């Protein structure tokens, strides 16, 4: 059994609750930095990319080359700005709204795994948690629009509410497909099931998951209010939409929330469809065998996986930026039509198609090809399900069923996957009891 951070702290004489609090604070602080630094980088990148797309240079001066400190300079400027609350506004709601947006966009990261065992909280219902908490962000926007006491803000907020609420339906339908293919809502398990070559990624599982990935991207862009779906802040019609009356740092929280959600939506796409922390060529898991090695090698493999996930998510954000500066903004009726008349039927069709595929021809998929490497989805899932009894429960061969035990390599079957390598990993029991054996 690996020592976890909680074990380490309790053995050092700290009381158990305090150890758990410290264990929870570590990923919390790390993820705050990821979201904040991510927002800084992506805002700079958006300016650079939009500049290049429009044949401009974008920021060039601050920080020496490429204007890479431009966003930080702007942040400092925003701190020095006055924080105005309009007289007409409902002052308390007006002040609370940015917190709600920011907290929602940030707290959804809690359930996101960055590698096996590298998550704030290993949840059995992680997919559900992420979708639910991400949905909270719209409350901040509606509050902001309603509390501002300005017509522009109210119109922007109502549009946003209608749009986000509508796109939740196809988004949920898209996400349920990887969930039922893997038979679990645990994001770590879903990610681990795509281990191996890129053919094991769920996007290549069957033609329907390939289609639904693009529907997911469309709905994801819409649900975080990015252009071409950014009606809530349509500058040409609504001045600035729901944040017309906001100023200074309070205003910038909406942007941090927006960029945090963008990264979150693309990270979710990466975990659900694009192989999570596994690269297209399994250098670490199969080539070098570090992933199952434990110790410092396993830690390095997890670190590389984490970098892989963040890199792929950043590519997703870059695609969103690219789309924003390429496509014109839609009208509200076009947005609603896209959602209700195209995305929902398309997602439903893909859902049924993927289900039929799974029910009748699951074994002709490319996903079954790398099985000789000892990676069988059913086996991995079974090992995780039997693990659900506790974080330190190791899975023995005896616990696996005869059908699934044969292709499992002993390293995978005899070892509790999430507690493998780092102290931070897996010291909290998974919550939610959907898979209790």
């Amino acid at each position: 059994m690996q020592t976890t951070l909680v074990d380490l702290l309790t053995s050092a004489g700290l009381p158990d609750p305090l150890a758990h609090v410290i264990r929870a604070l570590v990923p919390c602080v790390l993820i705050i930095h990821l979201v904040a630094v991510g927002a800084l980088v992506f805002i700079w990148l958006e300016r650079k990319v939009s500049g290049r797309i429009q044949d401009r240079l974008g920021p060039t001066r601050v920080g020496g080359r490429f204007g890479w400190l431009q966003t930080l300079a702007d942040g400092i400027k925003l701190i020095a700005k006055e924080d105005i609350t309009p007289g007409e506004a409902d002052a308390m709601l007006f002040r609370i709204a940015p917190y709600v947006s920011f907290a929602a966009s940030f707290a959804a990261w809690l359930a996101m795994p960055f590698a096996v065992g590298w998550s704030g909280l290993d949840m059995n219902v992680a997919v559900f948690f992420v979708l639910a908490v991400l949905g909270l962000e719209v409350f901040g926007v509606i509050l902001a629009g309603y509390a501002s006491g300005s017509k522009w803000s109210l119109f922007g907020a109502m549009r946003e509410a209608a749009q986000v609420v509508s796109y939740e339906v196809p988004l949920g339908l898209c996400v349920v497909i990887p969930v039922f293919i893997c038979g679990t809502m645990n994001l770590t398990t879903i990610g681990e099931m795509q281990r191996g070559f890129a053919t094991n990624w769920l996007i290549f599982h069957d033609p329907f998951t390939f289609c639904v990935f693009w529907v997911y991207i469309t709905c994801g862009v819409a649900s975080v209010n990015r252009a071409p779906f950014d009606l809530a802040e349509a500058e040409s019609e609504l001045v600035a939409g729901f944040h017309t009356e906001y100023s200074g740092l309070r205003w910038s929280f909406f942007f941090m929330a927006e960029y945090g959600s963008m990264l979150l939506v693309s990270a979710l796409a990466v975990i659900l469809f694009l192989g999570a922390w596994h690269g297209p060529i399994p250098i670490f898991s199969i080539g070098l065998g570090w992933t199952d090695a434990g110790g410092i090698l396993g830690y390095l493999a997890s670190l590389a996986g984490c970098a892989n996930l963040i890199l792929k998510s950043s590519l997703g954000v870059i695609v969103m930026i690219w789309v924003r500066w390429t496509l014109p903004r839609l009208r509200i009726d076009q947005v609603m039509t896209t959602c209700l008349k195209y995305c929902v039927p398309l997602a439903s069709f893909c859902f049924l198609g993927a289900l039929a595929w799974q029910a009748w021809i699951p074994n002709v998929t490319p996903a079954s090809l790398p099985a000789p490497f000892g990676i069988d989805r059913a086996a991995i899932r079974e090992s995780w399900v039997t693990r659900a009894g506790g974080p330190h429960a190791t899975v023995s061969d005896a616990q696996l069923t005869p059908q699934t035990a044969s292709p499992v390599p002993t390293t995978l079957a005899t070892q509790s996957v999430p507690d493998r390598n780092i102290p931070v990993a897996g010291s909290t029991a998974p919550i939610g009891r959907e898979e209790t054996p």
Partner: protein
Amino acid sequence: MMQAIPILLFFACAFATAVGMLVAGTLLGPKRSGAVKQMPYESGMDPAHSAWRRFDVRFHLVAITFLLFDVEVLFLYPWAVARKDKEHGLLAVVDQAQSSLIFIEVMVFVALLAVGFIYAWRKGVFHWR
């Protein structure tokens, strides 16, 4: 209880970060208020009337459709992780008849959903005039 600590801490940290930065902003920023400055922005005109008025009924329809369909989609999640027995998930279906049964069951569910969807479509709920 121990498992809820990270969730609560996450929300607390997010709030604390936001509050901390805003306090810094309040301390550093200027505070010069005035009647005109506090007026809601309406493209330079004096505001005609309060912004809190009645909404278009279309938003109400969207909300109702959302409630219907999103709750139905929520039902699919427990279905997706439900397993007929301990050993065989949907993934490791060994029994052809069983997998066909799972498929037909959810087909019925989606068909019922589709009836409601088509009804709403025919009624023009999705037509944003």
